[in-house]
C-alpha cells in the first residue's frame, strides 16, 4: 500500500472520528439535560428527543465524508486507486473542514440543545424555537461538509 493511499485513508478516518467526537460530546451534554428533565416529567420524551438527537448530525457528516473518500479510493471493491503522496495529502486536507467544524460545532450545538431542552421543559409549546437556534450552530458543520465535498470533488485521481 502506497503512502499516498495511507494519507488518504488517514483523511477519511479523521473526518469520521473527529467529527464523531464532536457529536458524541454534544449529544452527551444534551442527553444529560434530557434525562434531567425527564426525571421530573417522563412524558416529555417525545418532544425532547429531536433536540437530543440534533447534535448527532456532525458525526453523520463526518461519516458521510469518510464514505465519499472510501468510494473515491475504490476501497469497497473493484480497482483500488493508487494516489500519489501529493494526492493523498490533498484528500487528507480536504477532510479537515468537516472534521474540525464538526468537532467544535457538535460540542456547542449540544450546549444549545441542552438549554433548549430546559426551555422546552417549561414551555412545551415552543419546541421548534430551540431547534432553530441549534440549527444556527449546525450551519458551520454543514458548510464544513460542503467544503469537504467540493474539495474532494475537485481532486482528480
Amino acid at each position: 500500500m502506497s503512502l499516498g493511499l495511507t494519507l488518504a485513508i488517514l483523511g477519511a478516518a479523521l473526518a469520521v472520528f473527529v467529527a464523531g467526537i464532536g457529536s458524541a460530546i454534544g449529544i452527551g451534554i444534551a442527553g444529560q439535560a434530557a434525562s434531567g428533565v425527564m426525571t421530573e416529567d417522563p412524558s416529555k420524551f417525545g418532544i425532547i428527543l429531536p433536540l437530543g438527537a440534533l447534535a448527532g448530525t456532525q458525526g453523520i457528516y463526518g461519516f458521510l465524508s469518510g464514505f465519499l473518500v472510501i468510494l473515491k479510493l475504490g476501497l469497497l471493491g473493484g480497482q483500488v486507486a493508487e494516489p500519489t503522496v501529493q494526492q493523498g495529502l490533498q484528500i487528507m486536507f480536504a477532510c479537515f473542514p468537516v472534521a474540525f467544524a464538526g468537532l467544535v460545532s457538535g460540542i456547542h450545538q449540544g450546549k444549545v440543545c441542552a438549554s433548549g431542552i430546559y426551555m422546552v421543559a417549561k414551555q412545551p409549546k415552543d419546541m421548534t424555537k430551540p431547534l432553530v437556534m441549534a440549527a444556527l450552530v449546525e450551519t458551520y458543520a454543514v458548510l464544513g461538509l460542503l467544503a469537504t465535498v467540493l474539495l474532494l470533488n475537485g481532486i482528480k485521481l
Partner: protein
Amino acid sequence: MAIAPVKRIEVLLPKTELEGFVSYLQELGIAQLDPLPYEELQLASSPAEVADYERWLARINHVIQSLPETEPKKGLEKLLTPKPKYSASLRKVLLDYGYERVVEDYEELEAKRAQLFQNIKQIEREKEFLSPLAALKVPLSGLSGFDRCLLKIAEVKAEAFPGLKEQLADQPASISLISAEKNLTYVLIIYHQSLKEEVEAIFSGYKLNFISLEPYLPRLKGDEKVSDLLAGLEQQKAQAGAEISQLEKDMAGLAVHRSPLMAVYDVLLNEQQKLAGVSLAGLTEKTAWLAGWVPAAQADYLAQRVSQFSPNIYLNLREPKPEERDEAPVILDNPQLIKPFEVITSLYGLPRPGSIDPTIYLAPFFFVFVGLCLSEGGYGLVMSLLSLFYIKKAEPKGGTRQFMLLLFYLGISNMIFGTLFGGWFGFPIKPLVLMDPIADPIPYLILSLALGFIQVMLSTFLSLVRDFKKGNKVTAIAVKGGWLLLLPSLLFYFLLKQPPILGILALIGTAGIVFFSSSSRNIFARFFSGLYALYGITSYFSDTLSYSRLLALGLSTGVIAMVVNSLVQIAWGFPIVGWIIGILIFAGGHLFNLAIGLLGGFVHSMRLQFVEFFGRFYEAGGKPFQPVKLVNKYIEFIR
C-alpha cells in the same frame, strides 16, 4: 391569502342570560372575548366556583387515570383511536350522571386500600422483629422471668458471642443460642438476681441489644409461642391481601364508569372555561356587557345565530377603531392547498395585524427545500402514507391535522425530487435522474444557490411592498427597487459578460440606493451614508450562500442510504441467516436515515425561511385568534 379581516363585537344582555349566552358562544366557537376595556364597570367574577370546578376536575382526572380501561389498547392502537364523540347538546345531561358518587366511592375504596397496605407494612415489620426468635420453644408467658432469676433475650454480634459465653461460664448464669444470622446471634440469658451487677457489667462490655417482648404479653390468650404469633401475623397478612384484592376487584368494577367520567370531565372543563368567559363581562346592576372579535366572514352568521338565541341580546358589529387595530387577533387565511404551511408561519410567531402573511410565499420554497434536503423518493412515499394513515385513523383536529398534511406534502415533494436528484431507498431510477450530486455536486450547488437567490429577491420585493404601504413610497422604490435592479443585473452581467444594458441597469439601481437610503438633507451626508448602504450587499451575498446547505443535506441522506444498501449487500452474503440480517439492516437503517434526514431537512428548511427569508420584510407580533369554544381532553363534542 393574507390576514383575514376581523370585526369588533360588543354585546349587551341581561345579566340573567349571561352564562347561557357564553355557553352558546362556546358551542359556536367563532367569537373571541376580551376583557372589557372600561374600568368603571365592575367585572364579573366567581372564583369560588372556579376553584370548585378545579378540585372536581383534579379528582375526576385521578379516577380516570387510575381506572383500568374496559377495552385496553396498546401503544400504536391507542395512538390511532380517535376520541369518542358526544353531541354538544348532551352536555347538561352528562352532568346528571352522578359522577360525584362514583368519584367518592372510588376514593373511599382507594383510602381503604391504602390503609390495608399500611397494615401489611406494620405486620411485615413485626414479623421481621419476631422471626429470629421463632426457635424459642417456650410459651411467651413463661419468659417474663422467675422469682430469683432474671431472664433476658438479647441480640449480640456473632463474633462477640463466644467471648460472652466464656465469661458467663464463670458466673451462675446460663446463656443459650436461639438463632444465628450472618452477623448477629440471638441469645437467651438467665442469671441469678443476687449477681445482677456483676453479670450486667459483663453485658456492657459486649454491646448487647436487649429485646423486650413485653408489648406482646397483654395480647396473649394462653400458651402461645413466638411461632404461634408469627403464624397469626401471617394469617392477618393473608387476610389483608385478600381484602386488597377484593377492593381492587370493586375498583375495577367501577371501570364501566370510565368513559362516562371522561365525558363528564370535558363537560366540567367547559363549564370552568365558561366561567372564565363570563368573568370577562362588565356588569351593571342588571346588564352585562361583553366585547370581543369575530372573523369578518362569519360576522353575519354570528348576528343571525345570536338573534335566534334570544331576543334580549343586543349585538353590535363594527370595524375596529384605529387604536384597536393593533389589538386585533390575527387569523391566517390561505387557500386549502397552502393551509398546512401556516404551521411554519405560526411556529415563528404570527404576523402583526396589517402586515404581510408570508405563508403563500414560503410554501413553494419550503416544499422544494425539504425535497432537496432529503431527495429520497422511498422515504417520501413512507412519509405520505404514514401521515395519510394517521389522518384517516386518528382523525386529528386543528394543528395536528395541518402538521400531518404538511408531512404528506413533504412526502410528495420527496417523491418528486427523490426521483430527479436522488433515488428510492438508495437506488436511483437512472433514466429519470436529472443530476446526481454524488457524482458531480456542482450543478446541484448552482441549483441551490439559484433558488436561494430567487427567495432573497422575493424577500426584497416583499420589503419594498411593505415600505411602500407604510408611506415612504419614493424611498421604497428607489432603495429596495435599486437592490432588485442591481443584484440580478450584476449577476447576469458577470455570468454572460454582455449585453452592456445590464451594466447600465446595475448602475441605475446603485444610484437609487446611494441617493435615497438616507433621508438627510445634507447632500454629502446623504451621499456617504448611501455609499455605506451599498455595503449591505454582503448580507445579500451571505444569505444566498446560506442556501448551499441544501446540497450538503441532500447529499447526506443519499449517501447514508447507499451505505445502508451496501451493508445489506454484505449481510446478504452470509449463509442461511443472511437474508434476515439483510432485511433488518435495510428496515432499521433506512428508518434511522429517514428520521435523522427529515429532522435535519425540516429544521434547516425552516431556518432558511425564518432567518434568510423573513429577515427583510416580516413583522411578527400578532396575537392568535382564540375564540371561546368547546375544549376537550378526552372526548370530542360534535354539533
